[in-house]
């Protein structure tokens, strides 16, 4: 698949994804999205660079940051929004919600058990070898999920059965509030190689690099040469999920600290525990906050969508943005209208 990347198409995918997620994030802040919402904002370069390679029978096993890949693959934005907003007119009739969306029409499903996409893709790939040879199964996971045993098992199984799977590792350095290096032995690439996986790497905010690296792995897989591991760096400007308390600490330190400081002081002065341990613990929280601040700063420089814009002419970019904005706005307006402008989401709060 030494095909050249269609920059306009890829930029459109990224813009569309970002706009859908921005609209959902806005609705979330207004209390219209029940439960958790994990944006893939910052991962658009990864998703577009890979999904641009997919053809009819290819399948995707997605994780909790699934809105972006669904939208890029062709899921109807309004149907997805309705689902995420808690309507029973959503794509899954209100049964799934953001974390477990299934869209058979684009051959993609998502799951909230971290790592499960790995073995699900292994099964899909096995089916492809029998039903649609030449098709691939793609699965996405974060770097912290690489410590989940069922995912590691699936690396092995894909190699042992020589299956057309591409495992996409999106390394944003964090698993919720935990810095992944603090709880991980070795590094993702050596670990993947230890399973005999063929590895490619790229910087996730450079969509053209992702496209090239993904192309090599997808091509290998289609040719029956076995699974691949695509290691990509990225950032999560919105934190783990909307409302991430660490992000809150940065954006609205006063509010957050007014809660945390007395709590932590309570711990410090309470009986039990050595002074040295307490000092270390406080320093640990400090280190975490410091790392976090640094990462968020980096994020702004590494926006894949902004970078992707430079790959097309400014007039093309503007046209794409206008078209997408109009469609996505209309979709969200309609979705909001259908669920009503409720505040909160308790059933007594005005749910239709």
């Amino acid at each position, binding site marked *: 698949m030494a095909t050249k990347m269609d920059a306009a198409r890829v930029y459109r995918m990224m813009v569309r994804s970002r706009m859908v997620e921005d609209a959902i994030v806005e609705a979330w802040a207004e209390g219209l999205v029940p439960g958790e919402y994990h944006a893939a904002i910052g991962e658009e370069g990864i998703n577009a660079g890979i999904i641009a390679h997919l053809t009819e029978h290819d*399948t995707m*096993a997605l994780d909790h940051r699934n809105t972006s890949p669904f939208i890029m693959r062709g899921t109807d934005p309004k149907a997805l929004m309705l689902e995420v907003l808690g309507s029973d007119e959503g794509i*899954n*009739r209100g*049964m*799934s919600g953001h974390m*477990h*969306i*299934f869209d*058979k029409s684009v*051959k993609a*499903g998502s*799951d909230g*058990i971290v790592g*499960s996409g*790995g*073995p*699900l*893709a*292994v*099964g*899909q790939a*096995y*089916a*492809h*070898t*029998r*039903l*649609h040879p030449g098709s691939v*199964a793609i699965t996405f996971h974060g770097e912290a999920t690489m410590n989940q*045993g*069922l995912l590691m*098992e*699936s690396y*092995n*199984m894909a190699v*042992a*059965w020589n299956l057309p799977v591409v495992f996409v590792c999106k390394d944003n350095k964090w698993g919720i509030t935990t810095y992944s290096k603090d709880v991980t032995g070795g590094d993702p690439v050596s670990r993947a190689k230890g399973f005999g996986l063929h590895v490619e790497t790229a910087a996730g905010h450079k969509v053209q690099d992702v496209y090239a690296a993904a192309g090599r792995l997808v091509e290998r897989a289609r040719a029956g040469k076995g699974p691949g591991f695509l290691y990509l760096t990225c950032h999560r400007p919105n934190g783990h999920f909307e409302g991430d308390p660490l992000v809150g600490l940065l954006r609205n330190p006063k509010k957050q600290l007014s809660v945390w400081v007395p709590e932590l002081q309570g711990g410090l002065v309470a009986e039990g525990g050595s002074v040295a341990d307490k000092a270390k613990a406080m320093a640990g929280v400090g280190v975490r906050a410091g790392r976090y601040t640094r990462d968020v700063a980096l994020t702004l420089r590494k926006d894949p969508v902004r970078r992707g814009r430079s790959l097309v002419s400014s007039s093309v970019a503007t046209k794409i943005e206008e078209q997408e904005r109009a469609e996505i706005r209309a979709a969200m307006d309609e979705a909001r209208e259908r669920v009503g402008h409720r505040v909160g989401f308790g059933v007594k709060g005005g749910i239709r």
Partner: protein
Amino acid sequence: MSITATTTATTTMRYDEAVDHALGQAMAEDPTVVTYGEDVQILRRVLHSRFGGDRVKDTPISESAFMYAGVGAAMAGLRPVVELYMIDFATVGWSAILNAGSKFKDFSAGEWKVPMVLRAGVGGWYSDGGEHAQTLWGSLASYPSVEVVVPSTPADAAGLMLSAVQSDEFTVFLTPKLLDQQILDYLAGDQRDTLDLSHIQPAAGVRGEVPARVEPIPFGQAALRRDGGDVTLVSVGTGVHRCLEAADRLAADGIEASVLDLRTLAPLDKEAIVEHVARTGRVVVADEDYVRGGLTGEIAALLLESDTSARYARVAVEQTIPFAPHLEYAALPNAERIAAAAKSLA
């Protein structure tokens, strides 16, 4: 035994042969049916030699991944029969059953089916120790959108396996190891003629007539294995045979027992249960699962909900299953315990 008479030609088969016989028939008819699991190329060597290594595959010891992969394969167009040595081992990857097999169809609002069969040995009686002797079918049957099948005879094993493969639902097909001569020989017997489990094995469960051409047996239809008016003994799997033994003992004491074989735990044939219990006015539920969280409680609830007045007793597993044969026998729902429970209601 009142198994429905058929006119088709039959062959005598072992329980395990009957399962593979039905699976082989399904594989011959539908190329999307595949089977895989640990050591299946040896365990299912007849199917392997018939359909080859691409459809009968050995897996690594990765139950979690390969059960999840079964869900993925099923949603991508195959009908995989995923095999485990024992259901106890499924717990290293229970999420594949609970959070994927049982849920993905529902998450997709019914649009995307999971036509997978999980096949696994269950149960004790042959001294394999407490984490190689469980049934766990009570938990399995509690999850929404899961079918749970426990055949008690070779003929049922064949017909129910065919239905399991043809079903579009996620189905757990559980084979009592005590009835499966192949696995008993494999685990603990083949090379020693000194071993004799026959006195503890129910002959009618281990071997029996099976139609040469298997017909699917519908789920949710209990079979009355013995008819008696004094008490109804309800069970599945090996327990059905233990109930039949108990019924013999009871008959000697002048108590006539009905024995109801549920065959599938989900769907559950509630009508049959209520009907027979109402008729006899007494019921003993014999369950080779833990006493809490299983069939025994469910049947009690059904009776109360339907205002069926009956005297009730249950015989199930009340402790970690011991290894030593005599301790294991005492801990499982054996015929003596079942008969005693029935008498306590007299």
